[in-house]
């Protein structure tokens, strides 16, 4: 047996210039960043303040950063697919079929698992403890470990670009194509281990946040005083805890098929490939709502703040959220109506699917009524929210159309379906991500993002979305199926050209986003948020400074109703003074720990070794990762203390800014 398993120089695709050049560019860029960090002496800072940090705010920022980097990676895949289909009419195009297969699989995998999920989990990490009025999540070190395990998965997917290949069998690798017999390469193995490892991280996040929201809240923060974002985070994390084990088990079964000759999903020896499709969607549909619910939470916060009104129908919003949380587990068959089940099964699941739209409908009306009669400020987050309302409604309606089994038989696996789920995911998740990032950026970094570039990015995204995906609806109705490497039908070609033009507009949006960040950082002094409350916010995260101190709140807030921060502000304006200064006490915080980073480092080695069958390295990696946990479990000092006068100093700075605001507010004579 070879010392390096299946790994050899042939694993690097020397004959394929595209991945090679892309890999080289990424490698050079990465090398440059690392070299710059070391030469400038930033490495100790990076290690101390970020890599080993267990602070939920830092972890949230790192999750979001990972999501944005992977979003760009997935977007490059999208550009390649759209340009290939624009060119490949009666022609081979520039991507050979085996490479094209990897690209559409990588696009889906990256966008769902390593862009959308980290984006939402990042926002939850940053915002939920602040909105609950507490100092951190329930298990801070576990939280860091979750992040680094997610990063491991993302790293494995990116390694597959230059070492070996990626999964050619789709973002959900259906057997029998994904079985060893038909996909003998390492591509499916990259997919499996990347998701098995990052899936553990996601599950731990779920446990962490359910515990945090149920057990750790500020005094007086009863369930029905929590923000809708916290409610949707609770629902999404309950669903993670219930659904991700199904994904892990299903992928583990496929792994056993491929590695140890099991027969769960083979046609031979009593296996059934349909069972994979059934189980993967029993995870897959809840997953859609794991992404969508926190997005709805973001929009609820944004729409309420920028309409200057409490959210309309708060309790119905909570009910609709929990309704979706449950019913989303009863609709998964609509992903495979055509698999062969009879009319009874298809009918029931079709009806359940139509019913779940009611919950979302309630939310849409609540948002509209929140805006009705409000003094709407058209800041960038609000633009994303309004773009979402219109676009998501269209996507939702095509979804209800697809929920009708006879219609689905016509449209199954067509570009109509592709257009539908991009319609709901881009408006539902991506727009929410950008709205959330723009909204909470000043809280995280102490200065706002540049409004002009943000608005430009919004308009390019919105128009780019319609120009790209509306033609796909038409092409789907004309019978074009998804994942075509080339085609001969003349009627489809113009629509593909329009869609390719749409991608050009989307690229402009990306350029605006990057420019926005660069411009905002350079002009950070004029965009500075002094008060900690740049948007006239209503929930507790705005009650602390921007950026918040490590301990979030000098004194845990005393919550006396819904929209606690709005109440505090109203009281301050009515009495013309801030609430009296509290008695400051020393605060204990969890110490930083490299546990997560080191465990993920060895998990990466283990995953890579498993993919290439390097068994000695598997043993080594697992033993080392386990040793890290044992070492962590035996630590003596868990917490460090921030002395009372440091807390007092930080809080007095904040109070000074707030007093200035109150002064100014008084003179401006604005209504409260």
């Amino acid at each position, binding site marked *: 047996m070879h010392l390096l398993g299946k790994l050899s120089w042939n694993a690097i695709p020397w004959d394929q210039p595209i991945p090679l050049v892309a890999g080289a560019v990424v490698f050079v860029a990465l090398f440059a960043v690392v070299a710059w960090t070391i030469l400038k002496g930033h490495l100790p800072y990076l290690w101390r303040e970020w890599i080993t940090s267990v602070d939920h705010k830092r972890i949230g920022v790192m999750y979001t950063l990972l999501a944005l980097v992977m979003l760009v990676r997935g977007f490059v895949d999208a550009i390649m697919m759209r340009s290939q289909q624009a060119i490949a009419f009666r022609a081979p195009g520039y991507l050979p079929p085996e490479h094209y297969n990897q690209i559409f699989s990588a696009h889906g995998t990256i966008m769902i698992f390593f862009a959308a999920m980290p984006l939402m989990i990042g926002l939850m990490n940053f915002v939920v403890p602040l909105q609950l009025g*507490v*100092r*951190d999540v*329930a298990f*801070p070190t576990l939280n860091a470990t979750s992040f680094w395990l997610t990063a491991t998965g993302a790293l494995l997917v990116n390694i597959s670009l230059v070492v070996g290949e990626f999964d050619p069998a789709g973002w959900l690798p259906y057997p029998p194509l994904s079985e060893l017999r038909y996909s003998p390469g390492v591509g499916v193995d990259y997919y499996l281990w990347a998701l098995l490892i990052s899936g553990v991280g996601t599950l731990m996040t779920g446990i962490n946040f359910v515990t945090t929201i*149920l*057990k*750790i*809240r500020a005094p007086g923060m009863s369930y029905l005083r929590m923000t809708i974002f916290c409610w949707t985070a609770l629902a999404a994390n*309950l669903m993670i805890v*219930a*659904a991700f084990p*199904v994904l892990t088990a299903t992928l583990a079964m496929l792994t056993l098929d491929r590695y140890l000759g099991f027969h769960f999903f083979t046609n031979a020896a009593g296996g*059934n490939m*349909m*069972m994979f499709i*059934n*189980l993967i969607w*029993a995870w897959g549909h809840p997953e859609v709502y794991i992404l969508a619910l926190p997005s709805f939470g973001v929009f609820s916060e944004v729409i309420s703040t920028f309409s200057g009104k409490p959210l309309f129908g708060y309790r119905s919003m909570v009910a609709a959220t929990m309704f979706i949380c*449950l019913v989303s*587990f*009863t609709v*998964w*068959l609509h992903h495979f109506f055509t*698999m*062969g*089940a*009879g*009319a*009874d*099964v298809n009918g029931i699941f079709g009806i359940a699917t139509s019913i779940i739209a009611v919950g979302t409908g309630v939310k849409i009306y609540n948002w509209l009524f929140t805006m009705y009669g409000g003094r709407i400020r058209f800041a960038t987050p609000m633009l994303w929210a309004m773009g979402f309302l219109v676009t998501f409604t269209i996507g939702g309606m095509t979804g209800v159309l697809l929920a009708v089994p006879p219609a689905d038989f016509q449209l199954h696996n067509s570009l109509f379906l592709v257009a539908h789920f991009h319609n709901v995911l881009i408006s539902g998740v991506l727009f929410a991500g950008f709205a959330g990032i723009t909204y909470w950026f000043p809280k995280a970094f102490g200065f706002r993002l540049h409004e002009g570039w943000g608005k430009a990015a919004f308009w390019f995204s919105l128009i780019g979305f319609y120009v790209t995906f509306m033609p796909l609806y038409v092409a789907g109705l004309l019978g074009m199926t998804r994942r075509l490497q080339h085609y001969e039908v003349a009627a489809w070609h113009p629509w593909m050209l329009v869609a390719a033009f749409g991608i050009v507009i989307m690229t402009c949006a990306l350029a605006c986003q990057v420019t926005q960040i660069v411009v905002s950082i350079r002009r950070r002094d004029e965009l500075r948020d002094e008060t900690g409350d740049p948007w006239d916010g209503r929930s507790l995260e705005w009650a602390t400074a921007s950026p918040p101190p490590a301990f979030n709140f000098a004194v*845990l807030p005393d919550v006396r109703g819904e929209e606690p921060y709005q109440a505090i502000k109203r009281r301050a304006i009515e009495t013309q003074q801030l609430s009296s200064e509290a008695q400051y006490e020393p*605060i*204990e*915080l*969890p110490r930083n720990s490299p546990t997560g980073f080191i465990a993920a480092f060895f998990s990466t080695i283990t995953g890579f070794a498993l993919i290439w069958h390097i068994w000695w390295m598997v043993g080594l990696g697992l033993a080392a990762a386990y040793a890290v946990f044992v070492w962590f479990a035996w630590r003596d000092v868990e*917490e460090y203390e921030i002395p009372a006068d440091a807390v007092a100093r930080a809080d007095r700075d904040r109070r000074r800014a707030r007093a200035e605001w109150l002064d100014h507010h008084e003179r401006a004579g604005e209504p409260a």
Partner: protein
Amino acid sequence: MTPAKEEINADDVAPGVMEAADHSIRDGIQGYLIGLALAIMLTVASFYIVHTPLIWGPGIPVALVVLAIAQIGVHLVFFLHITTAPDNTNNVLALAFGVLIVALVIGGSLWIMSHLNQNMLPMDQMTRMQR
């Protein structure tokens, strides 16, 4: 975590957090011993009924299912401390949610998988047509 420690109160305790509840060590050990005895009894009973003419043959699987469910109940009550008291609402709700999802996924999968050949011709008709 500081807030976690501050906020332990008797109305909302996780299973296993004994310090907040008013239990003496003796009561605790007694509970575990009763649970252990019941669990052993149920285990022995399920092995016993398989080999005895006490129960009608085809009824044995049903008896085993009943004993298994009783076993789950014993574990939940004596070892995981799930009770109906108001301090346990979260735990009971979590359990109910878990049971519901497991029932949906397993029941749904069984139903779906058993329905897959609905649109196929019955096997004997198919062979007749091939002739």
